Protein backbone atom coordinates (compact mmCIF):
# COMPACT_ATOMS: atom_id res chain seq x y z
CA UNK A 1 0.00 0.00 0.00
CA UNK A 2 1.25 3.45 -0.86
CA UNK A 3 2.53 5.46 2.07
CA UNK A 4 2.02 8.89 0.54
CA UNK A 5 3.99 10.53 3.34
CA UNK A 6 7.11 8.78 2.13
CA UNK A 7 6.93 7.60 -1.46
CA UNK A 8 6.24 9.67 -4.56
CA UNK A 9 4.61 6.72 -6.30
CA UNK A 10 3.49 3.23 -5.45
CA UNK A 11 6.72 1.30 -4.80
CA UNK A 12 7.20 -2.30 -5.73
CA UNK A 13 7.95 -3.74 -2.35
CA UNK A 14 10.11 -6.78 -2.13
CA UNK A 15 10.57 -7.94 1.44
CA UNK A 16 13.59 -8.40 3.59
CA UNK A 17 16.36 -10.96 3.20
CA UNK A 18 18.93 -12.47 5.46
CA UNK A 19 22.06 -10.57 4.78
CA UNK A 20 25.29 -11.61 3.16
CA UNK A 21 27.94 -8.96 3.23
CA UNK A 22 31.03 -9.08 1.06
CA UNK A 23 32.28 -5.56 0.98
CA UNK A 24 35.42 -3.95 2.31
CA UNK A 25 35.23 -3.33 6.04
CA UNK A 26 31.88 -5.12 6.29
CA UNK A 27 29.75 -3.57 8.99
CA UNK A 28 32.70 -1.88 10.67
CA UNK A 29 32.49 1.02 8.25
CA UNK A 30 28.70 1.16 8.56
CA UNK A 31 29.03 1.32 12.32
CA UNK A 32 31.64 4.05 12.08
CA UNK A 33 29.26 6.10 9.96
CA UNK A 34 26.26 5.62 12.24
CA UNK A 35 28.25 6.74 15.25
CA UNK A 36 29.75 9.70 13.43
CA UNK A 37 26.32 10.88 12.28
CA UNK A 38 24.64 10.12 15.60
CA UNK A 39 21.66 8.31 14.10
CA UNK A 40 19.14 7.00 16.60
CA UNK A 41 15.92 5.00 16.52
CA UNK A 42 13.24 7.08 14.86
CA UNK A 43 15.57 8.62 12.29
CA UNK A 44 14.52 8.07 8.71
CA UNK A 45 17.34 6.55 6.71
CA UNK A 46 17.57 4.73 3.41
CA UNK A 47 20.14 2.36 1.96
CA UNK A 48 20.68 2.90 -1.74
CA UNK A 49 21.69 -0.32 -3.46
CA UNK A 50 20.68 -2.36 -0.43
CA UNK A 51 21.20 -5.73 -2.13
CA UNK A 52 20.54 -8.40 0.45
CA UNK A 53 19.76 -5.83 3.15
CA UNK A 54 22.77 -6.43 5.39
CA UNK A 55 23.01 -2.78 6.36
CA UNK A 56 19.27 -2.46 7.00
CA UNK A 57 19.29 -5.56 9.14
CA UNK A 58 22.25 -4.22 11.11
CA UNK A 59 20.67 -0.80 11.61
CA UNK A 60 17.48 -2.40 12.88
CA UNK A 61 19.01 -4.97 15.20
CA UNK A 62 21.82 -2.78 16.56
CA UNK A 63 20.34 0.70 16.63
CA UNK A 64 16.59 0.13 16.29
CA UNK A 65 16.59 2.19 13.11
CA UNK A 66 14.02 0.90 10.64
CA UNK A 67 15.24 2.13 7.28
CA UNK A 68 14.15 1.94 3.68
CA UNK A 69 16.03 -0.08 1.09
CA UNK A 70 16.28 0.54 -2.60
CA UNK A 71 17.92 -1.63 -5.24
CA UNK A 72 17.52 -2.15 -8.99
CA UNK A 73 17.69 -5.91 -8.45
CA UNK A 74 16.78 -6.65 -4.86
CA UNK A 75 16.93 -10.20 -3.73
CA UNK A 76 13.73 -12.02 -3.04
CA UNK A 77 13.89 -12.17 0.64
CA UNK A 78 12.75 -14.22 3.50
CA UNK A 79 11.06 -12.26 6.23
CA UNK A 80 12.34 -11.70 9.74
CA UNK A 81 10.66 -12.56 12.99
CA UNK A 82 6.89 -12.23 12.92
CA UNK A 83 5.56 -9.07 14.45
CA UNK A 84 8.95 -7.40 14.16
CA UNK A 85 9.05 -4.06 12.43
CA UNK A 86 10.76 -4.59 9.10
CA UNK A 87 12.48 -2.26 6.67
CA UNK A 88 10.62 -1.58 3.42
CA UNK A 89 12.58 -2.53 0.35
CA UNK A 90 11.66 -1.12 -3.02
CA UNK A 91 12.92 -1.55 -6.54
CA UNK A 92 14.58 1.51 -7.99
CA UNK A 93 17.76 3.28 -8.98
CA UNK A 94 19.81 6.06 -7.41
CA UNK A 95 19.05 8.50 -10.23
CA UNK A 96 15.27 8.34 -9.59
CA UNK A 97 14.52 7.87 -5.93
CA UNK A 98 10.90 7.13 -5.01
CA UNK A 99 11.02 9.26 -1.87
CA UNK A 100 9.41 12.63 -1.19
CA UNK A 101 11.48 15.80 -0.88
CA UNK A 102 13.37 16.51 2.35
CA UNK A 103 12.25 13.24 3.89
CA UNK A 104 15.37 11.51 5.14
CA UNK A 105 17.85 12.05 7.95
CA UNK A 106 20.44 9.82 6.33
CA UNK A 107 21.30 8.05 3.12
CA UNK A 108 23.70 5.11 2.93
CA UNK A 109 25.41 4.51 -0.36
CA UNK A 110 27.79 1.65 0.29
CA UNK A 111 29.76 0.17 -2.59
CA UNK A 112 27.19 1.61 -4.97
CA UNK A 113 28.21 4.99 -6.33
CA UNK A 114 30.90 3.42 -8.52
CA UNK A 115 28.10 1.53 -10.29
CA UNK A 116 25.84 4.49 -10.89
CA UNK A 117 25.56 5.57 -14.52
CA UNK A 118 24.84 9.25 -13.88
CA UNK A 119 26.59 10.57 -10.79
CA UNK A 120 25.18 14.08 -11.15
CA UNK A 121 21.62 12.80 -11.34
CA UNK A 122 22.14 10.54 -8.35
CA UNK A 123 23.65 13.26 -6.18
CA UNK A 124 20.86 15.60 -7.22
CA UNK A 125 18.38 13.03 -5.98
CA UNK A 126 20.29 12.49 -2.74
CA UNK A 127 20.17 16.22 -2.11
CA UNK A 128 16.44 16.33 -2.89
CA UNK A 129 15.36 13.56 -0.52
CA UNK A 130 17.61 14.48 2.40
CA UNK A 131 16.49 16.98 4.98
CA UNK A 132 18.60 20.07 5.45
CA UNK A 133 21.35 18.84 7.77
CA UNK A 134 20.81 15.21 6.73
CA UNK A 135 23.85 13.01 6.24
CA UNK A 136 25.02 11.28 3.09
CA UNK A 137 27.28 8.29 3.74
CA UNK A 138 29.34 7.01 0.85
CA UNK A 139 31.75 4.11 1.09
CA UNK A 140 33.27 3.12 -2.18
CA UNK A 141 36.28 2.63 -4.38
CA UNK A 142 38.28 5.66 -5.26
CA UNK A 143 41.09 6.36 -7.63
CA UNK A 144 44.18 6.84 -5.47
CA UNK A 145 46.59 8.00 -8.12
CA UNK A 146 44.52 10.53 -10.01
CA UNK A 147 44.34 14.16 -9.01
CA UNK A 148 42.76 15.44 -12.17
CA UNK A 149 39.31 14.05 -11.52
CA UNK A 150 39.30 11.70 -14.47
CA UNK A 151 37.59 8.34 -14.36
CA UNK A 152 39.35 5.10 -15.02
CA UNK A 153 39.60 3.79 -18.51
CA UNK A 154 36.95 1.39 -19.64
CA UNK A 155 38.77 -1.55 -21.19
CA UNK A 156 35.56 -3.44 -21.72
CA UNK A 157 34.36 -0.97 -24.32
CA UNK A 158 30.62 -1.12 -23.96
CA UNK A 159 30.66 -1.40 -20.22
CA UNK A 160 28.67 1.10 -18.21
CA UNK A 161 30.86 0.47 -15.22
CA UNK A 162 32.58 3.56 -13.93
CA UNK A 163 34.73 1.96 -11.31
CA UNK A 164 35.99 4.86 -9.27
CA UNK A 165 36.58 8.56 -9.10
CA UNK A 166 39.29 10.53 -7.38
CA UNK A 167 39.03 12.19 -3.99
CA UNK A 168 39.15 15.61 -5.56
CA UNK A 169 36.38 14.85 -8.03
CA UNK A 170 34.22 13.36 -5.30
CA UNK A 171 34.56 16.48 -3.18
CA UNK A 172 33.78 18.68 -6.16
CA UNK A 173 30.66 16.71 -6.99
CA UNK A 174 29.43 16.85 -3.43
CA UNK A 175 29.89 20.60 -3.21
CA UNK A 176 28.18 21.10 -6.56
CA UNK A 177 25.10 19.29 -5.30
CA UNK A 178 24.67 21.04 -2.00
CA UNK A 179 26.79 18.96 0.37
CA UNK A 180 29.49 19.90 2.85
CA UNK A 181 32.10 17.21 3.27
CA UNK A 182 32.49 16.34 6.96
CA UNK A 183 34.69 13.28 6.80
CA UNK A 184 37.03 11.54 4.40
CA UNK A 185 38.68 8.34 5.63
CA UNK A 186 40.85 5.94 3.71
CA UNK A 187 39.92 2.27 4.23
CA UNK A 188 42.10 0.77 1.52
CA UNK A 189 43.48 -1.73 4.00
CA UNK A 190 39.97 -3.19 4.39
CA UNK A 191 39.71 -3.52 0.63
CA UNK A 192 43.02 -5.36 0.44
CA UNK A 193 42.10 -7.68 3.30
CA UNK A 194 38.84 -8.61 1.62
CA UNK A 195 40.51 -9.30 -1.72
CA UNK A 196 43.18 -11.44 -0.06
CA UNK A 197 40.59 -13.41 1.92
CA UNK A 198 38.84 -14.13 -1.35
CA UNK A 199 42.10 -15.27 -2.94
CA UNK A 200 42.65 -17.74 -0.09
CA UNK A 201 39.06 -18.89 -0.43
CA UNK A 202 39.85 -19.79 -4.03
CA UNK A 203 37.95 -16.92 -5.57
CA UNK A 204 39.52 -14.55 -8.05
CA UNK A 205 39.41 -10.78 -7.45
CA UNK A 206 37.55 -10.49 -10.75
CA UNK A 207 34.79 -12.72 -9.43
CA UNK A 208 34.56 -10.56 -6.35
CA UNK A 209 33.90 -7.47 -8.41
CA UNK A 210 31.29 -9.29 -10.42
CA UNK A 211 29.59 -10.21 -7.17
CA UNK A 212 29.91 -6.68 -5.89
CA UNK A 213 27.87 -5.62 -8.88
CA UNK A 214 25.17 -8.04 -7.75
CA UNK A 215 24.68 -9.31 -11.27
CA UNK A 216 23.12 -6.04 -12.34
CA UNK A 217 26.28 -4.87 -14.04
CA UNK A 218 26.51 -5.33 -17.79
CA UNK A 219 30.06 -6.68 -17.81
CA UNK A 220 32.81 -7.62 -15.38
CA UNK A 221 34.83 -4.64 -14.25
CA UNK A 222 37.31 -6.67 -12.24
CA UNK A 223 40.43 -6.41 -14.30
CA UNK A 224 40.13 -2.69 -14.87
CA UNK A 225 39.61 -2.01 -11.20
CA UNK A 226 42.36 -4.25 -9.90
CA UNK A 227 44.93 -3.05 -12.40
CA UNK A 228 44.24 0.54 -11.38
CA UNK A 229 45.03 -0.28 -7.74
CA UNK A 230 41.99 1.40 -6.28
CA UNK A 231 41.57 2.59 -2.75
CA UNK A 232 38.47 2.43 -0.59
CA UNK A 233 37.07 5.34 1.34
CA UNK A 234 34.35 6.44 3.71
CA UNK A 235 32.93 9.85 2.93
CA UNK A 236 30.31 11.60 5.04
CA UNK A 237 28.72 14.83 3.88
CA UNK A 238 25.95 17.04 5.23
CA UNK A 239 23.18 18.32 3.01
CA UNK A 240 22.89 22.09 3.29
CA UNK A 241 19.93 22.48 0.98
CA UNK A 242 16.36 21.38 1.53
Amino acid at each position, binding site marked *: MLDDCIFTKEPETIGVAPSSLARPGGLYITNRAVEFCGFTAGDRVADIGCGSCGTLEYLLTTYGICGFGLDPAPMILAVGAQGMQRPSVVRGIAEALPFKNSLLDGLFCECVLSLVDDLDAALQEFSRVLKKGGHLIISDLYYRTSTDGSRLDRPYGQSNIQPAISKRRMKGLLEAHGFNSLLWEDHT*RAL*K*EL*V*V*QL*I*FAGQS*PEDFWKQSCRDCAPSPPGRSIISA*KPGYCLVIARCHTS
Partner: protein
Amino acid sequence: MTVRDQQKEEKEWTCARCGIDLELAKVQITYVGCGFTIDVLRCPQCHLVLVTEDLAVGKLAEAEKVLEDK
Protein backbone atom coordinates in the same frame (compact mmCIF):
# COMPACT_ATOMS: atom_id res chain seq x y z
CA MET B 1 42.97 -28.52 -5.33
CA THR B 2 40.01 -30.80 -4.68
CA VAL B 3 39.00 -32.07 -1.26
CA ARG B 4 40.29 -35.49 -2.23
CA ASP B 5 43.65 -34.02 -3.26
CA GLN B 6 43.78 -32.13 0.00
CA GLN B 7 43.04 -35.26 2.03
CA LYS B 8 45.71 -37.12 0.08
CA GLU B 9 48.20 -34.34 0.74
CA GLU B 10 47.38 -34.41 4.45
CA LYS B 11 48.37 -38.07 4.64
CA GLU B 12 51.61 -37.50 2.79
CA TRP B 13 53.27 -35.14 5.26
CA THR B 14 54.68 -35.91 8.68
CA CYS B 15 56.28 -33.51 11.13
CA ALA B 16 60.02 -34.32 11.19
CA ARG B 17 60.32 -33.12 14.78
CA CYS B 18 57.29 -34.86 16.31
CA GLY B 19 56.74 -37.74 13.90
CA ILE B 20 53.03 -36.92 13.69
CA ASP B 21 50.96 -36.57 10.52
CA LEU B 22 50.16 -32.97 9.64
CA GLU B 23 46.55 -31.92 9.72
CA LEU B 24 44.67 -29.24 7.88
CA ALA B 25 44.15 -26.30 10.21
CA LYS B 26 43.06 -22.70 10.14
CA VAL B 27 46.05 -20.48 10.78
CA GLN B 28 46.18 -16.76 11.40
CA ILE B 29 48.87 -14.99 9.40
CA THR B 30 49.83 -11.35 9.17
CA TYR B 31 51.57 -9.54 6.39
CA VAL B 32 52.31 -5.81 6.07
CA GLY B 33 49.89 -5.08 8.86
CA CYS B 34 46.95 -7.09 7.49
CA GLY B 35 45.70 -10.26 9.15
CA PHE B 36 44.17 -13.32 7.47
CA THR B 37 43.04 -16.80 8.25
CA ILE B 38 44.13 -19.52 5.86
CA ASP B 39 43.86 -23.31 5.71
CA VAL B 40 47.28 -24.97 5.81
CA LEU B 41 48.83 -28.22 6.95
CA ARG B 42 50.06 -28.00 10.54
CA CYS B 43 51.58 -30.29 13.09
CA PRO B 44 48.93 -30.82 15.79
CA GLN B 45 51.61 -31.02 18.47
CA CYS B 46 54.26 -28.36 17.79
CA HIS B 47 52.06 -26.30 15.43
CA LEU B 48 54.79 -26.04 12.82
CA VAL B 49 53.14 -25.04 9.55
CA LEU B 50 53.90 -26.40 6.10
CA VAL B 51 53.88 -23.86 3.32
CA THR B 52 53.87 -25.91 0.15
CA GLU B 53 55.40 -24.68 -3.06
CA ASP B 54 51.94 -24.53 -4.61
CA LEU B 55 50.76 -22.24 -1.84
CA ALA B 56 53.89 -20.07 -1.93
CA VAL B 57 53.88 -19.43 -5.67
CA GLY B 58 50.10 -19.44 -5.95
CA LYS B 59 47.76 -17.82 -3.46
CA LEU B 60 50.48 -16.33 -1.26
CA ALA B 61 52.18 -14.70 -4.23
CA GLU B 62 48.86 -13.38 -5.50
CA ALA B 63 48.02 -12.01 -2.07
CA GLU B 64 51.44 -10.37 -1.81
CA LYS B 65 50.78 -8.50 -5.04
CA VAL B 66 47.53 -7.12 -3.68
CA LEU B 67 49.01 -6.13 -0.33
CA GLU B 68 52.08 -4.47 -1.76
CA ASP B 69 50.28 -2.71 -4.63
CA LYS B 70 52.45 -4.53 -7.13
